[in-house]
């Protein structure tokens, strides 16, 4: 839009600004803004950039910890992992673009999150992703799955960073709004971490990376709007990723970071040049003067508005030490990247832009951050759910079915089935430091810190079924389950990143889901000493008024100090004893068994309360399992989640290519024992001679532990339950997804 | 001038992408499609106006870089700028 466009109420509304927000802008400027200035305010005050609906609630979260060097507020979180090493990580959503153009939406999601990590000086060492798709029968699901997976692989593989883990769910609630949450983990040295505060006056501001085009203008406002039936028309706003340039950018930036030339650096993400320039200046307490003629442009006749709002990918903004610019220029030219000095920091505290010798923007920077709306949206408490009591009619045999059929139904359900079709498309081993990945079926990926004997354990988790039933318990559970996953591989859980996906916050019931989920997360973070160091909020995931289930996706990172002492789901031996750590009450409310077999929570049938998380028990049980691993008392470990004990035992059997036999028990109805989803539980395979010490030590600490079966044979047997061939079950588990994608 | 170059797999070479395209079209009801081949189009902006010289240059470019003559064929046309 030309700078001379007249501002009308309609234009203000189209920019997503309310009347009162517009009046505040006029007040701060002492005049009406021009179109460029309006565009800048609109993106900075959009939900995506200002977090206006979520900020006050996010402020409650625990963000500090012994190993936390940098919490939320920078491009990514930074944690200490000893020896002068740090891990820098974050998760981010790219939901709306992925629905419209799945390949590029997912690809640019991966690109964007990687930039957030390497802009702080970390070499990306692992990517993960949490994906939520609609039900398999929905006409768009297959195309979306194929496109998203293709895009994640296409970008991640080309950049040369292994994609080592993640999770994928299918649920009708995502029919109109899929979720693509991308996580990146990077490694840096503690004395070489870079921040975004542009301190100092008169310092040169440099632009580096791809040229700016007309991509994605107003992507930030798209992320803040719901879809309706015209959404397909929004296709031009989705950007095309260039992983080749991203790889060059990573190498060039890391090379420059090894020198002393950079004062501040930030990647250009949502709201591109606008948000990076403003955030860097605001944090540094300086002003910025940019000459837009110097911005490398891909298209002809780009206007200031377009240049400031473009979301062209693979671009960074940096403030350099004066006199050292030639060092940066030489490095970027070697890597064939566009580099240009586009401005200088000033002492005016204002954002001043010139274009073709005219001043086209002159606004104070402080109000963009300080006056960004901080809404106190009304919310209602989520519905209280009843507990689903046991009923003899829930037993498969009573229903005219069998335990074998039930087990098969769960194994071939989209949430549980093998995701090999997905992760075989990701390079999991480039950089040669992947000790364990999705390949084993284990609970957390393990990536060695290059050149050392230690590793990071990484996982993503969330159970949207639980969150829909009870956002507070669901939020708590998501955090606790990642903590459990890290514990399963013997890691010390350190911190989390979160990607909070919800519907329209203007609806009090959705806002209530958000607030309660955060409260639940917070309780878990505090009890487990497991803070949030970075994160992202994605709201308005609704179509025609139908919201997604509340989905607070959590990415957890832990430290394995000694790679001689980690464990995994593999390593069980024929004849090992299976021990269950943790208490079992046979909780079936909101379980997969209840949903898939009994039909609860579907088609209008009631939703029941999800399994509660006892944080004290989680901590005690997990600390004990971690100690057993450290003392080399276990051969294999797996935590219990979807599908309960039966599925955990079967997954361990598949991973080890060995059957099992579960003993009879009389404390609970068999279906509740096998498929109940009580939390805080671990399945461990131990040598016979370790059984008594492991159990008695557990009991002495007040930790429930019992022998429940034996590893071995070619069958999966549960006394009074199922009796099925390992190979048959494995084949069905492996075939569901590839058969579905090929159909 | 513009050079518009079409590059495709040689006839004897298996083209799984082409095959997939043909099948997908058939599934959608376009039953007149009996086969499909997928290739690529490269457009070059060229200086000057000597068409004959351009043709020699473009052929050289195809042979040396744009087509892998082990498995690909190419054809091209030179058109004047509008």
């Amino acid at each position: 839009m030309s700078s001379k466009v007249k501002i009308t109420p309609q234009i203000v509304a189209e920019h997503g600004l309310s009347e009162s927000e517009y009046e505040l802008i006029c007040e701060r400027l002492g005049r009406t803004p021009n179109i460029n200035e309006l565009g800048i305010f609109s993106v900075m005050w959009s939900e995506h950039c200002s977090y206006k609906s979520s900020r006050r609630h996010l402020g409650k979260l625990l963000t500090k910890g012994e190993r936390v060097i940098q919490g939320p507020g920078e491009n990514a979180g930074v944690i200490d992992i000893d020896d002068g090493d740090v891990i820098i990580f974050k998760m981010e959503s790219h939901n709306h673009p992925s629905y419209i153009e799945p390949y590029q939406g997912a690809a640019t999601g991966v690109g964007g999150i990687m930039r957030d990590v390497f802009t702080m000086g970390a070499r990306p060492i692992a990517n993960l992703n949490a994906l939520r798709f609609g039900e398999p029968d929905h006409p768009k699901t297959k195309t979306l799955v194929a496109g998203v997976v293709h895009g994640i692989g296409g970008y991640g593989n080309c950049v040369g960073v292994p994609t080592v883990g993640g999770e994928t769910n299918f649920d009708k609630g995502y029919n109109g709004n899929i979720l693509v949450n991308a996580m990146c983990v990077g490694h840096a040295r503690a004395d070489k971490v870079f921040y975004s505060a542009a301190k100092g006056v008169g310092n040169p501001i440099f632009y580096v990376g791809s040229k700016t085009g007309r991509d994605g203008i107003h992507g930030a406002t798209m992320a803040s709007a719901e879809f309706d039936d015209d959404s397909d028309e929004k296709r031009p706003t989705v950007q095309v990723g260039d992983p080749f340039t991203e790889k060059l950018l990573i190498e060039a930036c890391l090379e420059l970071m090894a020198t002393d030339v950079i004062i501040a650096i930030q990647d250009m993400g949502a709201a591109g040049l606008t948000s990076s320039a403003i955030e860097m200046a605001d944090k540094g307490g300086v002003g910025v003067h940019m000459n837009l003629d110097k911005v490398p442009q891909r298209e002809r006749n780009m206007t200031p508005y377009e240049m400031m709002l473009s979301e062209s990918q693979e671009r960074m903004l940096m403030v350099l030490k004066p006199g050292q610019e030639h060092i940066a220029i030489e490095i970027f030219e070697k890597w064939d990247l566009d580099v240009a000095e586009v401005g200088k920091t000033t002492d005016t505290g204002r954002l001043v832009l010139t274009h073709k010798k005219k001043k086209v923007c002159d606004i104070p920077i402080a109000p963009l951050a300080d006056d960004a709306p901080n809404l106190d949206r009304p919310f209602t408490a989520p519905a209280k759910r009843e507990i689903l009591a046991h009923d003899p009619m829930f037993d498969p045999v009573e229903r005219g079915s069998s335990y074998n059929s039930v087990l098969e139904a769960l194994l071939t359900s989209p949430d549980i089935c093998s995701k090999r079709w997905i992760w075989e498309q990701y390079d999991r081993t480039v950089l040669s430091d992947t000790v364990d990945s999705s390949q084993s079926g284990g609970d957390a990926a393990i990536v060695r810190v290059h050149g050392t004997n230690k590793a990071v354990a990484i996982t993503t988790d969330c159970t949207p079924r639980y969150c829909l039933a009870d956002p507070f318990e669901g939020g708590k559970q998501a955090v606790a389950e990642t903590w459990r996953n890290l514990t399963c591989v013997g890691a010390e859980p350190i911190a989390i990143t979160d990607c909070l996906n919800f519907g329209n916050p203007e609806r009090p019931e959705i806002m209530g889901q958000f607030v309660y989920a955060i409260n639940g997360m917070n309780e878990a973070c505090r009890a487990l000493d497991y803070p949030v160091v970075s994160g992202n909020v994605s709201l308005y995931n609704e179509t025609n008024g139908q919201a997604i289930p509340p989905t607070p996706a959590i990415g957890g990172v832990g430290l394995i100090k000694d790679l001689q002492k980690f464990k995994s789901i593999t390593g069980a031996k024929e004849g090992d004893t299976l021990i269950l750590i943790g208490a079992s009450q046979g909780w079936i409310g909101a379980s997969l068994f209840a949903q898939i077999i009994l039909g609860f929570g579907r088609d209008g049938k009631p939703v029941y309360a999800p399994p509660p998380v006892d944080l004290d028990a989680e901590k005690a049980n997990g600390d004990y399992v971690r100690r057993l691993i450290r003392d080399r008392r276990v051969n294999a470990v797996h935590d219990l989640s979807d599908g309960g004990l039966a599925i955990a035992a079967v997954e361990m059997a598949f991973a080890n290519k060995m059957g099992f036999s579960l003993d009879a028990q009389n404390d609970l109805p068999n279906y509740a024992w096998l498929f109940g989803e009580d939390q805080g539980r671990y399945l461990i395979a131990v040598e016979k001679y370790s059984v008594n010490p492991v159990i008695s030590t557990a009991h002495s600490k007040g930790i429930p532990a019992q022998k429940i079966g034996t590893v071995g044979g070619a069958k999966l047997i549960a006394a009074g339950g199922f009796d099925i061939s390992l190979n048959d079950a494995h084949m069905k588990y492996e075939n569901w997804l590839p058969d579905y994608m090929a159909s | 001038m513009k050079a518009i170059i079409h590059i495709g797999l040689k006839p004897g070479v298996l083209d799984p992408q082409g095959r997939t395209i043909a099948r997908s079209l058939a599934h959608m009801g376009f039953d007149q499609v009996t086969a499909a081949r997928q290739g690529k189009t490269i457009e070059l902006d060229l200086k000057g106006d000597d068409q004959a010289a351009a043709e020699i240059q473009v052929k050289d470019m195809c042979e040396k870089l744009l087509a892998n003559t082990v498995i690909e064929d190419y054809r091209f046309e030179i058109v004047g700028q509008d």
Partner: protein
Amino acid sequence: MKSAVIVFPASNCDRDAADALAKITGRDPLMVWHEETTLPPVDFVVIPGGFSYGDYLRSGAIAARSPIVQDIVRKAGNGLPVAGFCNGFQILTESGLLPGALMRNKGLRFVCRPQKLKIINKTSMFTKAYKDQTEITVPIAHFDGNYFADGETLNRLKKNGQIVFKYDGNPNGSVNDIAGICNEAGNVLGMMPHPERAVDPMHGGTDGIPFFKSVLESLR
């Protein structure tokens, strides 16, 4: 033994190759930037895997036309040992040092998995140290690994013992299950699997170690 690893824009596996060479030869290799016109004096060159130039136009096509590859072609013609892994194999076919071409995987998807291979040529300078072992497992990770050569070329490869590795369980549609080949003189080898990712029991297994040991021993 002095070795070199060539680095192109977006070669991702150069570090892996360098680490494997350092580990097995006891000496850090030289990292040679693609813009060099002359290869420094070395005994063995590795063209690493990755996505040089983003695989744009065709995998390995642009890298194959770089100045350093022109020099490698000359020196390989005089007997310099060269090994190309994955994208390196693609670059070797594009440069003409090896016959045939690598095309899109038949399944039209990227494939990453541990792959069983059969050693077909046990006497080459790249496989001697495998001794009696004829089956190995090495990671693969590629989108364009489908090896193609016409009938006449295939006959020649078979006759001259130029087929070095075959897939046991073909992951990409390669003709005759070919996973790796060498030139007629036997000093240039290209393979789609990544032996440099199989030199560590913690990662990828150790079936890649004898590959590098073979080269080391052949050059003693």
